[in-house]
């Protein structure tokens, strides 16, 4: 029988939207039993966000955005604004080793489900609280989306053609940085608790996690006063460096990304492009100094080439290059396919739908998308009945009173 790395780990997951659910997805896909306690009164924003099955928001269970971040989990739907719903959540606490939540700090306090109260009942609890700016400080209750935090933490400022022409990373970028730190934090704290019996509370500000990815620029500012600004595709290490337009395909723009680190790669690139050495661009220093002319020079050489074929030729010659892949291209990408990245899982309401897979592969205890995302409250009956011993009449009553969904 297959064994997963986190078999036997039990997680109560109050998190919603991006960072929390992506963090607990790492645990669930690796065998932990993760019960998402979803508030039926305050439904996860992602459940009502595109992409949807058939392109239409037909129900609360038809969002692939939600589905992708909630594989391998179970869903218990409660109206946590009601005391009896919170009693039910608390009855699961003895079972759980880990609790995760991602609200602004007052929400769990108002529900009387904050760390102080939970750890009084279960001293060795490992609990992660992750909000945008942290549990303390004047901005602790700052609410918003990852897009705002990505602007706030500095990623927007360094994205664009010039300081006055910013052009941000797509989406809620910090939502995809913070879970990497959050997952490490939970795993290390859980391992520690298993070895020592000591649990604890982790306060992970998505802001502070995001800033780890900007550390060199912050150190530069602190030591020299220099502020890193948006500078197109200019690089400190590579010239040429950037995206160059190739031949259109099916009426759609195709571009190739190329980066050259040294004279050997430069010579190899010229060879593949059938160009002779240009006296303006012989050394790295020249190429850095005349990067606009360099971009025009390369742009003319690749404009009628196929991005795919050119990638193959450049890489064979030892030059770093790849087509600039659209979301459609990603589904046809040979390397992602060879990694078995895309998965079709059969969702209870959506039927077969496309999920992005794992970013790593373990040789002996690989994780996997063990099941499609749950519908809202899909496992309410089994959790209440099998785990908490409620009779079917009691469950029906709780549903009538809109405590359980």
């Amino acid at each position, binding site marked *: 029988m297959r*064994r997963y790395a*986190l078999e036997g780990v039990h997680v109560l997951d109050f998190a919603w939207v*991006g960072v929390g659910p992506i963090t607990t997805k790492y645990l669930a896909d*690796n065998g932990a039993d993760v019960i998402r306690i979803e508030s039926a009164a305050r439904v996860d*924003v992602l459940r009502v966000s*595109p*992409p949807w099955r058939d392109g239409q*928001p037909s129900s609360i269970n038809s969002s692939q955005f939600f589905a*992708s971040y909630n594989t391998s989990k179970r869903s218990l739907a409660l109206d946590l604004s009601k005391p009896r719903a919170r009693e039910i959540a608390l009855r699961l606490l003895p079972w759980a080793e880990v609790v995760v939540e991602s609200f602004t700090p007052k929400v769990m306090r108002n529900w009387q489900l904050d760390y102080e109260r939970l750890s009084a009942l279960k001293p060795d609890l490992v609990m992660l609280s992750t909000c945008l700016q*942290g549990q303390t*400080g004047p*901005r602790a209750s700052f609410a918003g*989306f990852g*897009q*705002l935090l990505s*602007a706030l933490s500095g990623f927007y400022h*360094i*994205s664009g*053609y010039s300081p006055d022409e910013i052009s*941000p990373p797509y989406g809620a970028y910090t939502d*995809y*940085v913070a879970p990497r*730190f959050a997952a490490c*934090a939970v795993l290390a704290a859980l391992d*520690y608790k298993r070895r020592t019996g000591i649990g*604890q509370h*982790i*306060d*992970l500000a998505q*802001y*502070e*996690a995001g800033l*780890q990815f900007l550390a060199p620029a*912050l*150190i*530069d*500012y*602190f*030591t020299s006063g220099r502020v*890193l*600004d948006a500078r197109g*595709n200019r690089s*400190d290490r590579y010239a040429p460096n*950037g995206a160059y337009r190739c031949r259109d395909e099916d009426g759609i723009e195709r*571009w*190739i990304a*190329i980066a050259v680190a040294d004279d050997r790669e430069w010579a190899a690139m010229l060879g593949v492009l059938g160009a002779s050495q240009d006296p303006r661009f012989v050394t790295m220093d020249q190429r850095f100094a005349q990067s606009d002319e360099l971009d025009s020079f390369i742009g003319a050489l690749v404009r009628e080439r196929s991005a795919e074929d050119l990638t193959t030729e450049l890489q064979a010659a*030892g*030059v770093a290059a*790849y087509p600039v*892949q*659209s*979301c459609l291209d990603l589904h046809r990408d040979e*390397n*992602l396919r060879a*990694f078995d990245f895309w998965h079709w899982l059969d969702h209870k309401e959506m039927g077969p739908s*496309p999920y992005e897979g794992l*970013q*790593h592969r*373990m040789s002996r205890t690989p994780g996997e998308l063990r099941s499609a995302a749950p519908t809202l409250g899909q496992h309410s009956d089994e959790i209440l009945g099998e785990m908490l011993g409620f009779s079917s009449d009691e469950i029906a009553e709780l549903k009538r009173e809109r405590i359980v969904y």
Partner: protein
Amino acid sequence: MLPQLLNGLRMLDLSDDRGAMCGKIFVDLGAEVIKIEPSSGCPTRRIPPFLDGEAGEDRSLYFLAHQAGKLSVTANLDSPDGRAVVRDLAAKADFIVESLPAGYMDSIGLGFDALAGANPRLIYAAISPFGEDGPGRDYKAYEAVSWAAGGMMFLMGEPGRPPLQMSLPQAGLHAGAEAAIASLLAHFARQRDGRGQRIVINMQACIVWTLMNEQAMPIMHGDFLRRQGVYLGSPKLRRKFVFRCKDGFVAMMITGGAVGSRSTRRLVEWMDEKGFAADWMKHQDWSAWTPAVFMALNERDLRENAEMESSVERFFSTMTKHELYSEGARRGVLLGPVMSAADTAADEQLAAREFFVDVDHPALGRMIRRPGAFAKFSRTPLAPPRPAPRLGEHNAMVYGSLLGYSAERIAQLRASGAI
């Protein structure tokens, strides 16, 4: 004081800028991370820019940031004696992370199978730009290439101008952090049965994971997004989400529906106080205003959206980003100023949480301020920050105390160029 989280665990770091973040996270969690460098130094020592703009093997800002707290030893992988040293280290290690070309470690006898033979507990993470099974197995990938391969570059930039990368490399940091997660997952399996394993981290997949599920759109909605600069949404309804203000930019989404109507109502109240709100904006039922559902889009939605955007921009141009941030937070308007490193350095929230730390760098003769802990742990705070190591700074300690080499042996290895 309690011991740190991963106290007693040891990682060997043979990675470059595609994996440095892995060891950095392990350092923060309290593990001992030994960076194995060639005698010329890890390539990350040569990544510009440098401290005060002056090149030097201890002055790369990347190196100072992401190699902090690691121990440095030198070992020459081209020499048989150097490889023997790494084998000895691997026998005493719990984790290895590397980002060398595919097959290289196997070819010099330091692959997973060889090392695990002597140390079955070993967890070995290999960071690969495109995975080890596809046509890109041996491909090179620098930042722009990984950003392109993972789909982020296609979505950054303005129509009619080139797709963009960020002005500070990111892809390798995602891969390194992912390697840390995977290594910890494998550690749980090892706690159960004492056996390690080999892990491949796919950098391309790591970038695909940053796309906010946009990658499902082609399949579920039959179309895919093109880059739109400071606009969001479908080609049918571009919605501006970065607005100019007096001294820079502010990010804000003008939304209605369940998610954004409260913020938009408060924004309109605020605009009204200053004379920037049209009558219809004040009487609009924002909870029912959901032009994001573009299937139901009509002329009126388009007109209202355009008018909101231009009114907001005129309103914002009367204030600085700091004024907008403070007052927006007070009023419950969801917005985020576009902050630079200078703004971040002066941020009161980070100051209140004592996020930045000053670390003494004796080799450079100065204190350097840097980002602090990635999270606050109530019982076992992350490791106190230490400087990045000088090249080979810990040779004597690691080779002498840890491996028990004699002074003669170390001198001999040094003379032969092995270390």
